[in-house]
């Protein structure tokens, strides 16, 4: 058992709810990057039990680049098939859910995030403002993986977008 205290990027930060849309730090557990070596994708796919198409999520596998996925949770033995790198601590996870989620993120991402165009289990490596991130569409919102060191800025950017949308809604009444 570790005697060191582990802290998440936004440890103890309370979720923020504005206009029914909630921003919260999420705990996604183990994140492992799997990058298949040239020619080894078929074997790696078998070992992983599948491989997501570009910009999509397949179970616990998130497409992050050509022949590369992030695995949430346990990773099978891929020795000789792929470079396997622990990424767990490097990413902060933010979950944004609720009716304003897409509108808020379309202030920060240059992407069409309407459900018709970015449905559940779609993902993209895309910039959130100036920060590179991995964006994943979920059932009722989005999961955002962002460099851990930038988590506070990401939170602030999303909070600002939500505040502006809330103020707009109030002004329209």
């Amino acid at each position: 058992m570790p005697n060191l205290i582990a802290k998440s990027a936004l440890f103890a930060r309370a979720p923020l709810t504005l206009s029914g849309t909630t921003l919260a730090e999420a705990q996604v557990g183990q994140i492992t990057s799997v990058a298949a070596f040239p020619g080894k994708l078929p074997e790696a796919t078998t070992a992983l039990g599948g491989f997501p198409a570009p910009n999509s999520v397949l179970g616990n596998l998130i497409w992050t680049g050509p022949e590369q996925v992030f695995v949430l949770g346990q990773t099978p033995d891929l020795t000789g098939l792929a470079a396997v790198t622990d990424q767990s601590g490097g990413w902060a996870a933010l979950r944004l859910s609720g009716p304003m989620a897409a509108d808020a993120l379309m202030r920060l991402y240059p992407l069409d995030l309407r459900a018709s165009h970015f449905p559940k289990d779609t993902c993209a490596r895309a910039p959130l403002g100036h920060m590179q991130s991995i964006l994943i569409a979920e059932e009722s919102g989005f999961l955002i993986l962002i460099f851990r060191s930038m988590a506070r800025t990401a939170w602030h950017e999303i909070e600002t977008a939500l505040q502006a949308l809330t103020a707009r809604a109030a002004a329209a009444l």
Partner: protein
Amino acid sequence: MRIAAKGLIDRTKPVSFTFDGKSYCGFHGDTLASALMANGVRLVGRSFKYHRPRGILTAGPEEPNAMVEVLDGASQSPNTRATVQEIYDGLAAQSQNRWPSLRYDLLSVNDLAAPFLSAGFYYKTFMWPRAFWEGLYEPLIRRAAGLGRLKPQNETASYEKAFAFCDLLVIGSGPAGLMAALTAARAGAHVILAEQDSVMGGHLLSDGGTLGMPWVDATLAELRALPNVRLMARTTVVGAYDQGTYAALERVGRHLPSAPHLPRECFWRIVAGQAILSTGALERPIAFENNDRPGIMLASAALTYLNRFGVVPGQKITLFANNDHARQAVRQLMAAGVQVAAILDSRADASTVDDCPVYLSAAVTDTQGRHGLTQISGTHAGGAFQIDTDCLLMSGGWNPLVNIACHQNARPTWREDIAAFVPHSGMVPGLTAAGSANGAFSTHAALREGADAAIAALTELGRSATAPDLPQAEDAPYRLQPLWAVPGKGRAWLDFANDVTVKDVKLAAQEGYTSVEHMKRYTTQGMAPDQGKNSNVAALAVLADATGRGIAETGTTTFRAPFTPVSIGALGAGGQGAGFAPQRYMTSDQASRDRGAPMVEAGLWYRPSYFPKPGETTWRQSCDREVLMVRSSVGVADVSTLGKIDIQGPDAARFLDFVYTNTFSTLPVGRVRYGLMLREDGFVLDDGTTARLGDTHYLMTTTTAAAGQVMRHLDFVHQAYCSDWQVRFISVTESWAQFAVAGPMAKMLLNALLDERIDDFPFMTYGEVSVEGVKARLFRISFSGEEGYEIAVPTAYGEALFRDLLAKAETLGGGAYGMEALNVMRIEKGFITHAEIHGRITAFDIGMAKMVASKKDCIGKAASQRPGLIGSEREQLVGLRPVTKTDIGAGAHLFNPGDKVERVNDQGYVTSVCWSPVLETYLGLAFLKDGRARHGQRVRLVDHMRKTDVLCEVTDPVFLDPEGAKLRA
């Protein structure tokens, strides 16, 4: 003056506002212009150059005269068009470009000096003496010129940026736009309908025609109810960019009192599969002498004020026009009970049938009334006339609003029958013009073209649509006879906003500026905030006439984005203050701040500068103590910001040999090696250490500042030169928190925390360890010259480990050290940073030529051996030590003693300096010509910035422990 029962304003909601400090009342739905007009205010601004009194010319965003400053708390928005600004309770506006007041403006003396102030006046007058330009003329001219003013404080209001996507973007919501949106929306396409006005409907709101509000309301209601339609009012599309991207500016809070977090404006980037340009047309003024007085306005504007706002611009109105269409305005004004003095039609063959006197072959040749029109005079078929009138409406025909179609540099086509430029297909890929923007001026034609354009656009997108039934609407032909300027000797304004007259354009032609682009720049026509919306076509028509060419041949100037002014605040939304860049925080951030450490930015990271102790009043005291602490006991520093790249695969070693100058394939597992990386041009890119974690597994470290650059470089090399190699790499910078533990007691400190003691852990070794139950990586490396280790744990444990290390270090008499101490210690050791490897430095320059392995190739190797990159003429890394104990600074230049201090004698420059508390002297690292051969010699260090001139001894760059005995202890 208000007219009862007219207009779309809400008379149950009075609104109070101020203009130039005086309170007025208007109604909800009024613009500042309509509300001022209702209050009888005619004089609203002063012109740019001659400070002529000006009134309201238009009823839309093209307004050249009625520009005001809107005051909002700490900020002030200049050049706000009163014809666009909606009033709200508490709105405070003031006139601009006048002093001391709008009515008595001292700079109106310019108007008397007008004979001297024609186009080119500045160029001709302020030529000499040459030296006077910068010191005297330019500041004076700049003070006198300009329209609105900004407050000197930083902008604090909030702005927003956003993205939107659609199948069809419809720009403008007049009959063509509404019909296009309806057609596409019914077919299921995603439609964005953008309208610059606060209310949708375009000229249907204001023309008083048969197809009025019921149809507009019904259409909007249907659109609003559809989930695939987004109606964006107060949103001006300002530019057309590549691949169907359009920029648009939404006035979100401009029409409301400011509220927390409510953006003033939102800058939209809209990506559309297809777009329809249904922006309508602008009525054009006619140039005649003194045509710029308050009370002279466009006929269509008067119609808008009547039907949209229930207000009329005068008591006794006259019309001067060259077309049939403009007569609608006076007919409706008469129907509303307003007296119309006369219709002055410039044509000889126009109808004379109207309920007021109609004069043909008419020309207005002069007007009277300093602060407001009182009288006009001229000639008509029956001879000379003089008419008392307080409002003259003018109409020179219509210009389709082609601007956005021209944003990708295509030029519009001249159509002789309507005497106007129209867009043609393909000017902006995917953009089609419809309605009066396309030269189809009747309402019926606009509706038809809107529907047709939508069907065509949807066909392009692979969808089908059918045209809705077109409602009954007027389909009157548009008859006009071009009239650009009434001949005369006096000043007849073309460009009201920049005070450009017919004479100025003629003068430009006479002086050889016959190209329309040259005329524009010589006269400044079209260069004011309205960008020539009211004047471009007339000005080039005058130029065409003056040069004996046709209008089509003369051509237009370039239409550029933005269509209407865009606040810098909107473009830079989110970027105010710290929003400029992401802030990166280390896991130790709070622990450092708790100890009072001032943070410095290193790249995007915030790192502690030093850790002040009680009693320390300057950074130097803390820094000196921290250096001595590390050199005598133990210090701890967070070095997590260094880039870390995990490299795996059977070809990992080969890849490293390729990107590093030295060899890594020979590095044993469990060992660490210093590496140097070159750019393709042979200059040094970065340096750092790389550990071999396993047979096919390496961990590279980079400097903090170049982490991203190195990652990009590796990606490039891999993708461009060896994509088939069995190697994969990924950044793990953020995955590990890493701490330097340095000093003679470093091992003692680590052993107090590690689960298993380390005893024999030689310099440049790597090993896996366990610290307080957490798996960690331990590297024996040193950037301080002391016995040094770096211990890395998964980031989540970073803060805990840092605090535990500090607690135990303090017990040993050690503690945390910051960037300042780190820098001093590396200078004492002659270790380089990006202060030295700044991009113009080769391996030879820093004495590392031998690190470029001879037995293998690497990126940059061949280029690094080009003539000129090696040899005694190069400036080489040396140490500097002042002969006397004097302060020296980085950036200073070096000269041979005795040489004159001037550029040609420059021998080199200083890159880093510090006070060494160990050696008790200032030390410098510098690049000096043939420096390695000059150890022991003296150079003169001259710092023009800090005004120092110091004699220094040239030394080896390693000042302390050159044998590395402490390092390897």
